[in-house]
């Protein structure tokens, strides 16, 4: 078997006195599509944010692409990572946020080309070429020169996906990328993501409340509660034959609220 | 009339400057100095026991009088024709000549305002709108070399710091200033050549000439009795100078 691309060992995270993640372990294989589901406050977002280095850790160890994320070697000892190490590691990872977080003062095209030009030293021509390709893929080829404020939520989110892809990370993190969208706009974003999952061998971690989408998208589903994995397995098993009571009751409620026509 | 009102009220409000020896404020806040002391003596004779003295900027004095905020000014505000038009002066009280505060030995040899006007690099300090400013301007000191100094202490400091080459005030003011500073590197040149001797008087609102006349009567008695000299001479002022001239002369002078 391959080396896992993400390895989480005994991860702990507290905010002040509140322990949000307490001794978490799991591995992710290269190319795997993972869906993280679970009730509000169970720590799903926190895990993605930790992987993106937006949040520090309180304990444990994470390896990404075979290298420790929050630690580094110095004079034969392993010490806490500095900003330079984090910067290097972030090359491997991209993230799409619930609220898009586009740069409002830059055009759609500039949103996508900014980081490649600055962090990889790409020329404008190269960066723009790839950006246009990505915009084409997310179905927004004609919106390159729009400002984010001129786009609908669904369009914004598709730009955000293109922006993250532009850096060609090996791992993509998606945090409830449709939950801030009007119901009618959800579909267009999920469409893009489904295609992405099918066409690339990128590793993907997805946090979502859209159970149907999680089902179609994921190779493996992790059900979280209170910062721990309660149950995991292939979607067919989790959604149709959950083992744990907590999983069952969660799915029952979601279904009652969501599936109403 | 005004005098009766004041008697009834029991006190008179006067404006004074913040310039020894015309004014002195003791560390307990008690106001003395030549100008308030004379005023106190005269008003006592007029039957008004108390003096309520407030320190004001020179520039604010005449407006205060005109706005009825004070009943009189006794602050070393020298009589000059324009001022005589703006207020009603009593007979002369405190007389003094103009002087210059300069570095020790008067290195640039300033003896008159025209000396300063002729030295293209020289800067003169003087109170804004004061007699000295007017004399200097008349002697040809250009506006940009005539620095408006807010108060005597600032003027002293500016000479010490070399910001101005000379600072002009009445002789006694500068003497007092220099004595207090204890600075051996400065000296007072007095009197400025060509500058007349000026005298101040108590200034009243133009509408209160009756009060002013009453004041004059008592002031004359005070001068006669020698009491006047006893008050002003310890401060360095000459009683004889005040008694040798009159308001009419001073107000007519150019």
């Amino acid at each position, binding site marked *: 078997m391959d080396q896992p691309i993400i390895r989480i060992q005994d991860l702990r995270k507290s905010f002040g006195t509140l322990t949000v993640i307490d001794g978490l372990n799991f591995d992710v294989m290269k190319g795997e599509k993972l869906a993280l589901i679970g009730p509000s406050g169970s720590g799903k977002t926190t895990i993605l944010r930790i992987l993106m280095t937006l949040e520090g850790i309180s304990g444990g160890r994470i390896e990404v692409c075979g290298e420790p994320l929050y630690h580094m070697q110095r004079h034969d000892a392993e010490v806490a990572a500095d900003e330079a190490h984090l910067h290097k590691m972030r090359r491997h990872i991209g993230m799409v946020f619930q609220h898009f977080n586009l740069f409002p003062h830059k055009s759609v095209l500039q949103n996508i080309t900014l980081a490649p030009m600055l962090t990889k030293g790409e020329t404008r021509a190269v960066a723009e070429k790839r950006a246009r390709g990505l915009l084409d893929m997310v179905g927004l080829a004609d919106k390159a020169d729009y400002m984010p404020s001129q786009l609908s939520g669904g369009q914004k989110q598709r730009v955000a996906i293109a922006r993250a892809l532009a850096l060609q990370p090996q791992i993509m993190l998606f945090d409830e990328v449709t939950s801030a969208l009007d119901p009618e706009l959800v579909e267009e974003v999920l469409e893009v993501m489904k295609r992405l999952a099918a066409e690339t061998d990128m590793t993907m971690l997805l946090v979502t409340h859209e159970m149907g989408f999680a089902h179609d998208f994921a190779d493996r589903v992790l059900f979280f509660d209170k910062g721990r994995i309660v149950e995991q397995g292939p979607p067919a098993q989790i959604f149709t034959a959950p083992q744990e009571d907590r999983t069952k009751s969660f799915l029952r409620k979601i279904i009652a609220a969501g599936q109403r026509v | 009339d005004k005098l009766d009102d004041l008697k009834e009220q029991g006190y008179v409000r006067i404006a004074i400057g913040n310039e020894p020896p015309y004014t002195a404020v003791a560390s307990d806040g008690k106001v003395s100095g030549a100008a308030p002391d004379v005023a106190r003596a005269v008003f006592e004779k007029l039957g008004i026991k108390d003096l309520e003295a407030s320190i004001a900027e020179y520039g604010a004095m005449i407006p205060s009088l005109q*706005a009825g905020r004070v009943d009189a000014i006794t602050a070393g505000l020298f009589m000059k024709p324009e001022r005589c038009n703006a207020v009603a002066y009593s007979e002369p009280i405190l007389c003094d000549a103009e002087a210059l505060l300069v570095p020790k030995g008067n290195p640039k040899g300033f003896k008159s305002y025209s000396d300063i006007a002729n030295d293209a690099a020289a800067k003169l300090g003087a109170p804004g709108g004061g007699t000295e400013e007017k004399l200097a301007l008349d002697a040809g000191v250009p506006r940009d070399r005539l620095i408006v100094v807010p108060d005597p202490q600032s003027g002293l400091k500016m000479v010490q710091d070399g910001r101005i080459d000379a600072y002009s005030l009445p002789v006694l003011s500068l003497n007092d200033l220099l004595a207090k500073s204890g600075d051996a590197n400065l000296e007072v040149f007095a009197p400025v050549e060509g500058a007349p001797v000026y005298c101040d008087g108590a200034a009243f609102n133009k509408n209160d000439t009756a009060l002013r006349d009453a004041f004059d009567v008592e002031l004359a008695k005070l001068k006669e009795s020698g009491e006047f000299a006893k008050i002003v001479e310890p401060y360095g002022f000459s009683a004889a100078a005040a008694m040798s001239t009159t308001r009419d002369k001073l107000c007519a002078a150019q």
Partner: protein
Amino acid sequence: MGDWAGYLTLILQGAWVTVKLTLMGSALALVVAFIAGLGRISRRAPVRWLATAYIEFFRGTSIFVQLFWIYFVLPMTGAELTPMQAGVMALGLNVGAYGAEVVRGAILAVPRDQLEACVAVNLTRFQRMRHVILPQALPLMLPTFCNNAIELLKATSVVSLISLSDMTFQAQVVRSQTGSTLMPFVTILLLYFAMSSAVSFGMRRLERRVTRGLDGVR
């Protein structure tokens, strides 16, 4: 040269005048700020114009000029004010104009939702303001009011123009009488700083009291 202790007392007397000016000026400013601030958002156009004129005038001209007018020009129209009254009036009206904009801003910053909720439960205009909008706007105003109070404290030093013996003025007197520049100025710098620190300390405590129970709202 003299008796420092005595002259210090003189400066402290000035400090007391400064404190009185600050307290009374702030009280006036507060009242005026609410009247003009509410006037600014009144439904009646003439009230709005009046409030706007007051605010723009007092924010537009320098406090020196205002002080001068109130002290020297107003008496000619028959209104006789003591220097203290004139000082308080100038400071209060000047800072009140700034405060009015704070009041207006804070009221407008209360989310529109709240106003709509009030309409939906059928409160009258006055009830909306009194029970819902102002209680929420107040905590938003306090930090700026604190700054305004400190501005007012600092502005008291200009009253020396109208011969009020405030702290700065007394320092000038001491300077003339003793010939020392350093001592009086350092003393009043420290005193002013102590006063403004006291203002911000008091305001912070007040703020904590007013915002209690509002945590997590905004």
